C-alpha cells in the first residue's frame, strides 16, 4: 500500500509554564496524500500553526512534541536529531508563511536566496543552480524570470513576493508543503491567484499541501479535505464538500454560519456565543461544551473520543445529522 506523504498520529505538543503544562496540540491525527490539499481551519489560537511547526520541526521553545508520531512517506521524523531534521526541511518538506513582505531576506537577491537553498539540498554546480532558480521562478509565474533573478525582494510587489516565497519553498522539490495562511497578508485580488498557483503546483507535482487558513472561501475553492481544530484538538475531519454542507460537529456548523461563503447563499451570519477557552483553563469534558447549544451532561463530563481518518468524522458525542441541522436553522 502507498504511504500517505504525511501521516500525523496522536500528536501532542506541550508547553510547560509556571501554571502547569499547556497542550496547544492534543492527540491530533491526520493524513495527507500526494497531490492532496488538506485545509486546516479553526479560531485563532486553536493550534493550527503549532501543528504545522511541529511537523516541520520548528517549534519555538519551550513548546515540544511529547508524544505521538509524524511519518513522512512512512518514515518517522518526530524522533530525528536536529541536523537530520534540518536536511529534510526544504528537501522533503517546505513551509510558506503568512507575510511575504517579511519572509524574504531584504539584503540578498532573490537569485541568491534561491541558489543557496538549491545548493544546500541538491549537489549541483553554480550554473545549474542558477538555471534551476530561473526555472523555479518561471514555474510560479514570475515574468522575465532570468532578468529578475538579480532583483532584491523590495523590487517585487506583494503578490509577486509570495510567488517568490513559494518558489523558494519548492525549489528543492519537496513532497510536502505547509502553507500557514499564505494569502492572509495579501490583497484580495491576488489571493485567488496565489491559491490557484498552489493548487496547480499540487496537481502537477503531486505535492501534498497542508493549507492553514481562516478563509472558508479558500477552503471551498482549494481543499480536498478539511480538518477543523478547536482548543488544540481535531473537532472534525472529512471531505470538504461534506464538511461544508453537512457539518457534523456543532462547532463546525457554528463556524460555517459565522463565515460568509458564496456557495451558501445569503444566509444571515451568526456568531458562536462565547469564546474559545484558554489552554490553561479547559473544561473537563468536550472543550466546546460550554458554548454548545446541544451540550448534555455526558458532554460536560467526558472528553470526546479523538478522531482519525475514516474513523468517525466529528469528535462529538451527539454529532449533528443533516436533519438536525435544518432544525437549528429553522
Amino acid at each position: 500500500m502507498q504511504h500517505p506523504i504525511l501521516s500525523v498520529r496522536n500528536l501532542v505538543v506541550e508547553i510547560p509554564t509556571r501554571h502547569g503544562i499547556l497542550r496547544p496540540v492534543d492527540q491530533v491525527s491526520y493524513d495527507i496524500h500526494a497531490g492532496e490539499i488538506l485545509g486546516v481551519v479553526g479560531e485563532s489560537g486553536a493550534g493550527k500553526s503549532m501543528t504545522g511547526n511541529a511537523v516541520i520541526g520548528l517549534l519555538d521553545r519551550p513548546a515540544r512534541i511529547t508524544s505521538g508520531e509524524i511519518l513522512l512517506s512512512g518514515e518517522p521524523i518526530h524522533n530525528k536529531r536536529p541536523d537530520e531534521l534540518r536536511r529534510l526541511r526544504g528537501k522533503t518538506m517546505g513551509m510558506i508563511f503568512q507575510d511575504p513582505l517579511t519572509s524574504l531576506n531584504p539584503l540578498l537577491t532573490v537569485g541568491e536566496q534561491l541558489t543557496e537553498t538549491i545548493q544546500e539540498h541538491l549537489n549541483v554546480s553554480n550554473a545549474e543552480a542558477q538555471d534551476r532558480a530561473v526555472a523555479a521562478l518561471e514555474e510560479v509565474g514570475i515574468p522575465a524570470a532570468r532578468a529578475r533573478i538579480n532583483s532584491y525582494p523590495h523590487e517585487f510587489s506583494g503578490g509577486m513576493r509570495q510567488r517568490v516565497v513559494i518558489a523558494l519553498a519548492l525549489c528543492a522539490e519537496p513532497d510536502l508543503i505547509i502553507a500557514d495562511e499564505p494569502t492572509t497578508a495579501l490583497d484580495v485580488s491576488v489571493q485567488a491567484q496565489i491559491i490557484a498557483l498552489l493548487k496547480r503546483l499540487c496537481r502537477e507535482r503531486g505535492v501534498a499541501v497542508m493549507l492553514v487558513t481562516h478563509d472558508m472561501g479558500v477552503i471551498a475553492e482549494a481543499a480536498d479535505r478539511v480538518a477543523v481544530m478547536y482548543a488544540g484538538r481535531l473537532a472534525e475531519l472529512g471531505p470538504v464538500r461534506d464538511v461544508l454542507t453537512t457539518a457534523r460537529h456543532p462547532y463546525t456548523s457554528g463556524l460555517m454560519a459565522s463565515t460568509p461563503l458564496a456557495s451558501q447563499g445569503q444566509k444571515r451570519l451568526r456568531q458562536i456565543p462565547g469564546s474559545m477557552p484558554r489552554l490553561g483553563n479547559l473544561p473537563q469534558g468536550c472543550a466546546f461544551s460550554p458554548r454548545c447549544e446541544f451540550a448534555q451532561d455526558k458532554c460536560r463530563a467526558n472528553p470526546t473520543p479523538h478522531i482519525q481518518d475514516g474513523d468517525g468524522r466529528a469528535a462529538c458525542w451527539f454529532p449533528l445529522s443533516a436533519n438536525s441541522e435544518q432544525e437549528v436553522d429553522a
Partner: protein
Amino acid sequence: MLAYIIRRIIQSIIVLLAVGFVAFAMFNFVGDPVDNMLGQERTQADIERLREQLGLDKPFIVQYWHFLEQAAQGNFGLSYRQGRPVADIISERLPATLELAFVSGLLALFGGIALGIFTAIRRRGISANVIMTLSLIGVSLPTFLIGVILIYVFSVELGWLPSFGRGEVVDIGGWSTGFLTVSGLKAMVLPAITLGLYQMTLIMRLVRTEMLEVLRMDYIRFARARGLREKSINFRHALKNTLVPVITITGLQLGSIIAFAIITETVFQWPGVGLLFINAVQFVDIPIMAAYLMMISVMFVGINLIVDMLYFAIDPRLRVDRSSGGH
C-alpha cells in the same frame, strides 16, 4: 542618491561653520591674545602693530572670514606658548593619536562584533552570560580607572608592559610610527585597551541586541524552514542585517575614540594631540585649542559622511530611486 549626498555635504559644512565660529570666538573672548603674546615689557606701539598684524583691528565678520580662510588651509597661527606654527605642532603629535585610535578602533570593532555575535547566538550559555556581566562592569567603570588598574596590574605588579609614553618610534617621511619597534608595540597595548574597551562593550551590546532582534524575524524562520545551516543563517542572513543599523552607531563611536583619547593620553602620558590639548588648556594656548576643536569636528563630520555612504553600499533598499521601487 547624488542629491542625498549633496544635502549631507551641505549639512556638514554648516556644522563646521558653527564649530569654526566657536573656535574663533575663543580668540576674542577668552583672554587677550596680544597680552599673551607680548611679554611684560611692551609699548603701546608694539600692541598696535601686533593687533594690525593679527588683523584684530578689522570688523568682527571680516576677522571671522579671515579665520575660516586660514583654518581651511590648516593655518591656525602661532602657539602662544611655543611660538611655533600650530599646524607644525599638531602634525608632530597627530601620528601618536591616530595610531592609538586606529588600534583601539580595530579592537573595539572586531572585538565588539565578535563578542556580540557570540553572546547572541549562545544567549543561554554560561560564557555568554559571564561576558554580558563583565561588559556591564566595563561600561560603568570610568576610563581613567580602567587605565590605572591596567597600569597597576601589568606595569607595576607584573612589569610586563610600560606604563607611559610611546616607546621607541621610527620616523617615516615625517610620520613617527610606533608600529615598527618592539617597545613601540608594547607601549601601545595598555592605552589601546583602555581607550577601546568602553567602545567595544558598547558595540558588543549593540550587536547582540540587534542580532537577537534579527534572529526573531520571519526571514530567519523561513531560512530555517528551507533547511539552511545554522552557520549560514547566523553569518549570512542574520549578521548582514544586523550590521546595517550597527554601522551608523559604530562609525560615530569610532569618531568619538579620537575625542576620548584625551583621557587615555593623559593617564598614559601618550604624546598625542589629546595630551597636547590638555596642556594647551592649562596654559590657555587658544590657537592650539581652536585647531584641536576644528580638527575633531572635521573628523566627526567626515566619519559621519562615510558612514552614511556605507549604509548605501550595504542596504539595497536605499540604493534604488524611490520611484522605481516596486511595480
